[in-house]
């Protein structure tokens, strides 16, 4: 059971304005209901399988400056900063 309130909470968490909450409640509700099938999978005692890598395969500690002026290829403010809205 997913309530409209829960959808509103999650949309705040995911930072997306979801205006027509009702439409989402129905669709998300049916998706989550479907996931209930996982309860009958009988996997409580299962351990996760893990992919691993030895330490020696990792990147060596070298400084390599990026060859282009990257900030100019992105949204920028006078070629120096990125602008963000005010923080409260």
């Amino acid at each position: 059971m997913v309530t409209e309130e829960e959808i509103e909470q999650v949309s705040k968490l995911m930072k997306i304005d979801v205006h027509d909450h009702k439409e989402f409640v129905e669709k998300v509700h049916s998706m989550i209901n479907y996931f209930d099938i996982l309860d009958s999978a009988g996997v409580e005692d299962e351990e996760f399988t893990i992919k691993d890598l030895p330490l020696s395969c990792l990147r060596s500690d070298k400084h390599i400056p990026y060859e282009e002026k990257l900030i100019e290829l992105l949204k920028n403010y006078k070629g120096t900063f990125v602008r963000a809205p005010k923080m409260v």
Partner: protein
Amino acid sequence: MTKIGLEIHCQLTKLESKLFCPCKANYREYAPNTNICPICMGLPGTLPRLNQKAIEKATMIAMALNCSTPEKIAFFRKNYFYPDLPKNFQITQLNIYGDTSIGGSGMIIVGDKKIRITRIQLEEDPGRLIYEGSSSKNQITLVDYNRAGTPLVEIVTEPDFENPKQVREFLNILSDLLENLDVSDPSLEGAMRADANVSIEGGNKIEIKNIGSFHDLEKAVHFEITRQESLHARDILIAQETRHWDDKRKITISSRSKEEELDYRYFLEGDIPWIIIEKEIHEKLKSEMPESISSKKERYVTKYGIPDQVADVLSSDKFYSDLFDKSDTEKNAKEIANIITTDLMGLVDTKEKRQQSKLESSHLTDLADAIQSGKITRTSAKNALYEIVKSGKKLEQIISEFDLGHVSDEN
């Protein structure tokens, strides 16, 4: 019963590159947004490239703090939105599937108190924010990502501290330790930051965030203890909350956050496999670790008969201990130690002075010899030292140049 716990963030400033990309770890010399690349900017399609040395150095820190070090470590995502976080998640470490962060429980002695370390984790620093515009209407946030991705080691302690003085002592020990391990320069601005939690009389734990320096940390803790004690004395309940340190007014303020408590939705970082640190590597790192401060002190006291307090000063400062250990300690250890901890100290009491100093261990050997053999007086030695630090000239030359070769002690 006052209980204080700490959460300390140390940048690994001595590394060449960031935690997940080859940009420079120490960003301080760079103009805004010139120490960035597609990876640390979290551009679409980029993936983290873990820095091998960061893991090695962090493991050494864990060993130095007597922490357990697991054979497999894992990284997790901490998901939240903030402009200084290019991916809007931070790659960090957790212990939710067993012990997978770089350091498990450990401890360190501070004076006569044992301080337990809860865990040590490796994570990335976010960028920096600058606020522009005066009135709240015009305000804009400017973001500089030079720091984003800088390797951080987070050290979490149990609430074992009893007073601000112990906290201060611990921070000094930690700074010295990190410098001694050659992983970080604690004197760099922002290289070491800390949050604290404070509770009194078994009451609620109050978190204090936004403490800018170690100096402020002691003040903040002191203020908070006083605040809680006064509330307690009036029988007022101390509610569980997070407060932040107001640097201007030198007080802690309740963080009235408008957001609900954040749910970080932690899960394993799929782009980084678990890293295996075999036993052989642990042994190799242990053997490569620079001698610990306590071991140096022990050595100075037992082997060279250096007085306790002098040995303390000598061992806890890498600049001094390096000079001492490279000089001819077999012959004149006590004299050299004395020169360093009395006359030299005043001449190299800042970072700049140390960088400019031309003094080498051989100078100290010569100086100690000269004093012991009576070739020059203590006072002349002091003057000679000043010259050596300035010019690096050999003692012989200075003695003749400045005509210091008197035996008598009159002055």
